[in-house]
């Protein structure tokens, strides 16, 4: 072998290794084919079925101990996503303590502006004055260094009822302003993201005649499809039918319920693995969402490369679920609702709790223990002492004692912020009572 030949071979090897590292998960070959694309019925945009949710970038500490986004990892993930055909990126001025827009755009701006669709939101929850709302709107353009936004959303509609919508967008004249911006082409598509009950949703859709929305963003996954909270949140199948009836495309958020459907209770995970030992739990949930033709794109907040790789293998050469598989997931969802877990997606909208409680941390720890199925319940249980010790120790590890559920005073400040309609104080008190009971059995 001469020198030239050697270089050729190693270069090819390196290239294939690089490719392999992009598309292979746990040694499983990447699905054949290309990224599944959907066409926006309103303007003909060709959008990748997998969209990137920019709410969960990896956070690290800077020199002064503050949380900052790890820009290097954002750059890498964005490059890899775009190279694999992902072309929809969804952010908000509120995400990640206000850092998401800047970090996401910094990575995206290294690519041609017409190679991806950019979505952001008017997240004027806390101050809905016209001045503050206008500033938030223009800041998005400045921070992201762009002249137009492809998909612009009225953020988190439904919470606080139609009144809140009216206050945030109609009374302050922002709606008229945004419609004018759409006319000018600054906003290419205008829509809203929704969390709430049926009357609120119906009221919102009734305004479609006036405002002519271009799309709607909803929470859709195989649990919320028919098993949403019901009182404060409406089932996704209802939302889906109503929106598609209007001919509008649907952008889906929380396809994994904040990761819950990727980290399933052990017995549920077992059933999925028995059906397909090679498929990840997340891939089932992703395929469920993609199976619905009215879905334009599925937003997934992929923090790590492994998340992205798993999703890429699902959406490249996408295979919709069969009728039998849909039935199977529906049965699974029914069993899942029987677990006393809290359907917190760790979106952190409730934080910081004014009294210092780590709300998502407490819920996550509790869910994990319940999901494992071997959490301490009563002293008669086999191995109770060991389970009790492990549960209490892991609780202290997961949540600092001053931020545990026992410190929730029930002020209800968090209630209005939760997109999942979790009765946070009631759930914290329930968990606290459980832990107190377990403690006393020592």
């Amino acid at each position, binding site marked *: 072998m001469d020198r030239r030949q050697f270089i050729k071979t190693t270069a090819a090897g390196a290239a294939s290794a690089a490719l392999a590292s992009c598309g292979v998960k746990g040694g499983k070959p990447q699905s054949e084919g290309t990224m599944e694309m959907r066409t926006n019925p309103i303007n003909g945009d060709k959008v990748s079925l997998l969209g990137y949710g920019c709410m969960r970038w990896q956070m690290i500490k800077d020199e002064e*101990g*503050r*949380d900052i986004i790890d820009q290097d990892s954002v750059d890498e993930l964005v490059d890899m996503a775009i190279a694999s055909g992902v072309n929809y990126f969804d952010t908000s001025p509120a995400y990640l303590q206000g850092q998401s827009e800047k970090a996401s755009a910094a990575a995206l701006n290294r690519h041609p502006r017409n190679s991806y669709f950019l979505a952001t939101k008017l997240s004027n929850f806390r101050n809905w004055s016209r001045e503050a709302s206008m500033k938030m709107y223009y800041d998005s353009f400045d921070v992201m260094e762009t002249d137009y936004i492809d998909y612009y959303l009225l953020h988190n509609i439904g919470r606080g009822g139609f009144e809140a919508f009216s206050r945030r967008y109609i009374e302050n004249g922002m709606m008229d302003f945004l419609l004018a911006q759409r006319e000018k082409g600054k906003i290419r598509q205008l829509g809203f993201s929704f969390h709430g009950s049926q009357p609120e949703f119906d009221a919102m859709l009734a305004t479609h005649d006036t405002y002519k929305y271009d799309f709607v963003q909803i929470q859709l996954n195989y649990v919320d499809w028919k098993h949403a909270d019901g009182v404060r949140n409406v089932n996704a199948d209802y939302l889906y039918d109503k929106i598609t009836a209007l001919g509008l495309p649907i952008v889906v958020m929380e396809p994994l319920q904040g990761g819950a459907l990727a980290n399933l209770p052990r017995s549920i995970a077992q059933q999925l693995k028995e059906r397909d030992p090679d498929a990840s739990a997340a891939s089932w949930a992703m395929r469920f969402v993609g199976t619905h033709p009215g879905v334009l794109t599925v937003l997934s907040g992929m923090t790590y490369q492994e998340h992205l790789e798993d999703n890429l293998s699902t959406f490249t050469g996408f295979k919709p679920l069969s009728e039998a598989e849909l039935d199977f997931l529906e049965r699974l969802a029914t069993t899942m609702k029987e677990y006393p877990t809290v359907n917190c997606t760790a979106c952190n909208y409730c*934080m*910081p*709790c*004014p*009294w*210092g409680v*780590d709300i998502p941390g407490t819920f996550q720890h509790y869910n994990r223990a319940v999901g494992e199925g071997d959490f301490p319940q009563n002293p008669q249980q086999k191995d109770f002492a060991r389970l009790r*010790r*492990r549960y209490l*120790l*892991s609780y*202290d*590890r997961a949540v600092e004692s*001053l*931020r545990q559920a*026992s*410190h*929730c*005073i*029930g*002020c*209800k*400040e968090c209630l209005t912020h939760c997109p999942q309609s979790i009765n946070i104080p009631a759930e914290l*008190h329930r968990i*606290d009572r459980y832990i*107190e009971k377990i*403690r*006393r*059995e*020592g």
Partner: protein
Amino acid sequence: MLRKIRIIIAGLMLAGITLLFLDITGALHAWLGWIAKLQFFPAVMAVNLGAVALLLLLTLLFGRIYCSVICPLGIFQDILSRLGKKRRFGYKPERKWLRYGVLALFIAALVAGVQVFVAFIEPYSAYGRMVQNLLAPLWDWGNNLLAWISARAGAYAFWPKEVWLRSLPTLIVAVVTLVALAILAIKGGRAYCNNICPVGTMLSLVSRFSMFRPVIDTSKCKNCGSCARQCKASCINAKEHKIDYSRCVDCFDCIDDCKFGALRYRFAWGRKKASGTAEGDSGRRAFLTVSALAGGSLLAKAQEKKTDGGFAQILPKTRPQRKTPITPAGSFGPKHFYDTCTACQLCVAACPNNVLRPSSSLEHLMQPEMSYEKGYCRPECTKCADLCPAGAIFPLTPELKSAIHIGIASVDRSLCVVETDGVSCGNCARHCPAGAIQMVRKDPDDEDSLMIPSVDESRCIGCGACENLCPARPLSAITVNGRSNHIID
């Protein structure tokens, strides 16, 4: 041979009692608690007649082996003493006036309720104080390193323990104790034990008459004087072939040392009578008299500081003024507790909820008190009562403990977040294990009024759950005062 056996037993006993103080798991308490109960002075305070009789009998039979293998401070001094040169001692006559003078002062302090002096020179307390204040932090930091590794490995073998300064004065006293002891031990071997230690002096009254004792066989002795130079108790008068058994701690160093086999440990009752003393007798009587005094005000200062980041800031709690100190269930009340407690710090070391800490007040310096800034007295925990060797806290079951009223909570409405922030709360009522807190309407005429807490004094047990979990910071809106007499439901 005897010396080797002595060293092995002493090593085991010292390791055992030290671990008792350092144990984080609480699992060793059941196995090693007896070593603490065997300590002479705490046993006297606890009126633990069995232990006292056993120790006196042991001393009568074998001399002061208690000082060589049971007393942790004695063993610790032997270790310190090794830092000095060999054969640096020599016979010194007994300093009776000093020994009995200190013992008399000790008893007077005990009777007068000056527990600081008692705790300062009492050997077991001195040792416990050094371990708890000087060694435990190092041990805990080591443990926390393992806990850190363990958490990263997803294992549950170790968990972190907070290291915090419970009382600066006590820490200072511990340092002084260590320095003083090191100087005494290196210079004079068992100088503390034979001049100052009240337990040593008390046992010496019996050991003078001990049945087994080292005896010099004059027919074999070559008068080399090596044994006297080796004797850390300075009690061998080689010239006259006499040994002062009131000071001999039966370490057997001399027996091992004698090249001529002139020293033997053997039955020798009745020979060489030594005379008892008036002070000693009065001392023994004084011990049986019941002690008095205690109570009064407490000057409290919080000394910890902690920083926080990330979430909403949480201010550390400061200690409220308590009219009457809170003492553990099983102590009957501050009077019995402070009269009996020898300030050995064992309960402070064992408290898993960071409730017990040595007092910094002059009156009860080093003796523990309860406070609820870092935790509260959990209903399922009886660790301090299980362990106390001095009878200051009597053992009890969790059920009985929860029926004992050790304090009374009271509400300062001006600090309650319902008043200051206009939010609903009720965290105190939600966590009261006795159901002693009732939420009542702030405005009785308003149906939808916010609810404020009120304490049912007859039900409150004083555990401090309300105070610890009160969201008002740095001072809690609901605080507990001790009861002067604990009562049982």
